[in-house]
Every structure is written in structure tokens, then in C-alpha cells.
């Protein structure tokens, strides 16, 4: 399946693009992260410490266990610092 993946802040800088379409058979967010890390060093670097990476599934905060079935947009970013 294909899904849109967006990145923000230093996750975006490490991966090098703000948005991309990813083709994957991964079942969960965590599986996709493992797949991307194995593909290229820039992903491996961005996802080397998942304790400082947050996930949003279709623009709602989620986690690495979330299933990917039916998902349109996945986002990865550092802990938020608004205000």
C-alpha cells in the first residue's frame, strides 16, 4: 500500500524531505519504522532513539503500535514545544 508520510522539525531535517509517499507492506507504524531504518542511513539516524519521536496517524497523536491499515497520512516529529 501507499501512504503519505510527513516529517517535522529535526526529524524532517535528518530525513531531508518534509513529505513523501511510501510504498510498504508493514502492518504497524513500528514495522514501517524498522523497514525505513533498514532502507537508508538517514532514516536510521532519524529513528535511532524512538523515545524522542512522536507519531500522528491521520493527524491524531498515536503510537508505534498503531496499525497502518486504512491510514492516509502518517507523521513523525519530536516532542512538541508550543506556547
Amino acid at each position, binding site marked *: 500500500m501507499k501512504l503519505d508520510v510527513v516529517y517535522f*522539525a529535526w526529524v524532517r531535517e535528518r530525513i531531508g524531505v518534509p513529505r513523501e509517499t511510501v510504498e510498504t507492506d508493514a502492518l504497524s507504524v513500528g514495522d514501517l519504522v524498522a523497514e525505513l531504518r533498514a532502507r537508508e542511513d538517514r532514516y536510521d539516524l532519524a529513528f535511532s532513539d524512538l523515545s524522542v519521536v512522536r507519531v500522528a496517524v491521520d*493527524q*491524531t497523536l498515536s503510537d508505534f503500535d498503531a496499525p497502518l491499515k486504512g491510514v492516509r497520512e502518517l*507523521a513523525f*516529529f519530536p516532542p*512538541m*514545544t508550543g506556547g
Partner: protein
Amino acid sequence: MAVRVQSEDFDLGAELEALRAGRTDIGALVSFSGLVRDDTGDLKVLELEHYPGMTESALTEIEVEAHKRWELNATLIVHRFGPLKPGEQIMMVAAASPHRKAAFEAADFLMDFLKSRAPFWKKETGVDGAEWVDAKDTDEDALKRW
């Protein structure tokens, strides 16, 4: 209830005037505004990045929750993005209620959740280069008191 995410500055006084205009049911109006602080004198620019779409829905969700918990006449959240200079306004929240305690608590609640549940990120550019601002553990801990 209103949420605005914008690059342009806002007039805090005018926002509060508009919030209470024509109303006689508000007894207490609490507002907070966050400013770009320069601790060292080295800060050149604070860049605010956000997630368009999710930002608005996350802020609205936080507002809805505040209205469930307190008796509120109105709330407003304005948050800027883009490059900001030291001393500039970053954001504001306002909570209007018949009573003081609810207005204070709701404004405090909005701020606590906005800080770590709305998708904004800050990058500081100083004389020695640029650095992303890390989230603080105390910000996450602050949510537990609600």
C-alpha cells in the same frame, strides 16, 4: 470558542475587546501571552514550525475539553508560526467565565496542554548557529495535575 494559527502578529487588547464585545454574562476574563525570550542576549530568531491541519484540530480539542471542565463563556487561542524576533508575541490564550477561578484554571489548563499536545516546534538561531528547543519533562509532568 475560537482557534487561529497565523504568521502575523496580533493585538492582545483588541482580541480581548472582541471577545467580550456586546456581552454582559462574562464576569472574569483571564489571558496569557507568550513572548520570545532571549536568556543570553545571543538569540537572533526563533522559528516556529507547525503541522497545518493537525495544529488547528489539536487546539480545538483542547478548547473543547476546557469547556467540558469549566463554566466558560468564551475561549480564544491565537498561535503564530514562522520566524520571530526576541520580544515578539508568540501566542495568547484567553478564557472568559462568569467567575474568576474557572477563568484562571481554564487558561492554565489551555496553556499546559497547548505546550505539549499541539504540534509546534521551536528552533533558536543564535550567534553560534541553530538548535531545536527540547521539550521539558516538567511540561509533560504538568499535564498530570489536570
